[in-house]
């Protein structure tokens, strides 16, 4: 994990959003489990905020959430496919 105040801020923001979503879901007795995608939308959001600058993360998040309907596709859909991610790391 690279340092930097900006990165740290992003990671904290990601946790904040994730927690907020979970809290609201809990408040309304909404179940996890019917997710069409892997990772789930809230995990995806957290990941996106962590990995990308906000102006890139936000459109991705909106696109992803708006695909959560019967004709929206399904399956494995990470923010950044893992192989690409690994190349970056190297």
């Amino acid at each position, binding site marked *: 994990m690279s340092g930097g105040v900006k990165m740290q801020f992003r990671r904290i923001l990601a946790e904040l959003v994730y927690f907020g979503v979970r809290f609201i879901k809990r408040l309304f007795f909404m179940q*996890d*489990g*019917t997710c069409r995608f892997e990772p789930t939308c809230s995990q995806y959001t957290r990941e996106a905020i962590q990995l990308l600058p906000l102006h890139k993360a936000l459109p991705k998040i909106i696109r992803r959430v708006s695909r959560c309907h019967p004709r929206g596709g399904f399956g494995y859909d990470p923010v950044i496919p893992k*192989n690409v991610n690994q190349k970056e790391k190297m």
Partner: protein
Amino acid sequence: MNKDKIAMFALIIATLLFFQSPVGDSVVAKFFPAKNVPVADSTNAADQPEALLTKVAAPASARLTGEDSPIVDTVAVAATPAVTDSTNSTTADSTVAVAPVAPVAPIKPDTTTIENDRIRLVVAGDGARIISAKLKRYSYAKEMGHGDSIPVELVADPARGFAGAAINNQSLNKSIFVYAKGADGRHTFTTLVNGVEVKKSFVFADSSYVVGYELESALLKGASASILFSSGISETETKDNWGMTRNPRLLSIKSGKDLEKINKKFDRKSVAGKFDWVTMSSAYFAVAVMPSSIQDGAVEALSEQITPAPKDKPGNLIYSFAHTANAVGSKSNYDIYFGPTKITELQALNVGLNKTVFSGWKLFFGANMWFPAICEFTLWLMNAFFIVFHDYGIAIVLITVILRLVTFPLTQSSMKSMSKMRDLQPKLQAVQEKYKNNPQMLQAKMIELYREEGVNPLSSLGGCIPMLLQMPIMIAVYNVVSKAVELRGKSTVLVPWVKDLSQKEALINLPFTIPVPFTSGYDTIALLPLIMAVLMFVQTKMSMKGANSNDPNQMMMLYMMPVMMFFMFYNMPAGLTVYFTFSSILQIVQQYFVDRANAKKSSSVTIVK
């Protein structure tokens, strides 16, 4: 990873604490400056009444009919805070009064009490103003269930009162009226203004919260008449968790299809239009003024801070207003509603007054149009259950059952799917690990795995969106429980120690207040929030069975959520905690059966294999 979470919680707590602190208040005040009329204290006002009046009257005179407008003065007098000493107020006001000035000696004019079976009005001789309006069927929360109940008082400040009158913007509030009882529930007050007779009548009907108001005088021909509600509506409830902001006082103005609800601080507001009604309402009670003939008129309103007002919160604001319109012939007529904000009562008036009770957020899919209807339906259902069972606790429980039944297909399919997915998780992770460098292959393998195990994410009812449908219903239940006057003072057999479902629960009343950040402090010991938190913990634990117990996210859900819910619901209305507790129980039961069915199925599958 964990560091981030800790930082996040620290951030949340720091932010909340900041806005609770005096420093935060001053920052808020800096960015959202309060533009209120400078409220002088009573001694100040008595010292220099002209200064106050000129200051406020100057911008207003242009707005009204163009004449110099003493009506503003009467409202300006209202701008001074509660004047406890009546002689003091007389001296302060005497410069304003254009009507025959009362003798200098502090005369205490006669007061008259008029009542029917629901309301009791006390009318003062000076100005024939209503200085007390009591609702006989509603008592203060403290006295509720204590035998000799004290009816709630709607007039916040008797020195100013309700239903004052002005002709051509000249206040009659200092004129001395003489009372005479008329026929058919008519109570008439008469005075002379410049030698001309002015009659002010209140017309009472049996079993009604509506009082007719009539101002009649030869002076009114071609003149404008005003009705002055210089006093705001009083606070009848004790403070709750959020310091009264849950049900802030409202000033609602309806003209045609436009309904304006104001619960903000404003300077001095003057609007022109054809008004159906002007209403000021508190948490559970309202005073609505309905002109008998809807014609061009003006509403002048004022917001003030209640004293003592520790913070600039909307709940601590109080509104006064005046309605001015041309007289019809020599008369000016109004209907005035003094009563509870009970939907059925308000609907019966058939002027859309029920719209003041429940509101929706316009920006959220035009919720201002459909959300009140959901709330009213929920309340109607609750009242229907109440008629059968005579218990609002049972009514709330039945509504919970109905809500769970309606959303059953959704929750059931997602619970089933989740239960299976949980069993599948290790296999899924193995597949992901194996094909992590080949997304296309991974996709194919995942579909294969789902098919093999009989899990189909596509079979669920269209993703997460339908789950959102139950949100409005839940918010409606919350709204109904915290706003419906029907629940005020009602207890339930389900939780016998709850005296009032609309108030926070008190198993034991503490003689002191435990200061808790973000709340007005806890002065009771409550049991339901604890039960609710424990049930929430149990439910989360059940749904996590077999999952990786070292996952920090899961741990956060497991421990932090119940703790947060506990604090959040501690001072909430008991009706709401009843709802949440029972909803948790139902969910646990459902979860238990789904898990058991799933376990049976998977074990039989292994046997076959």
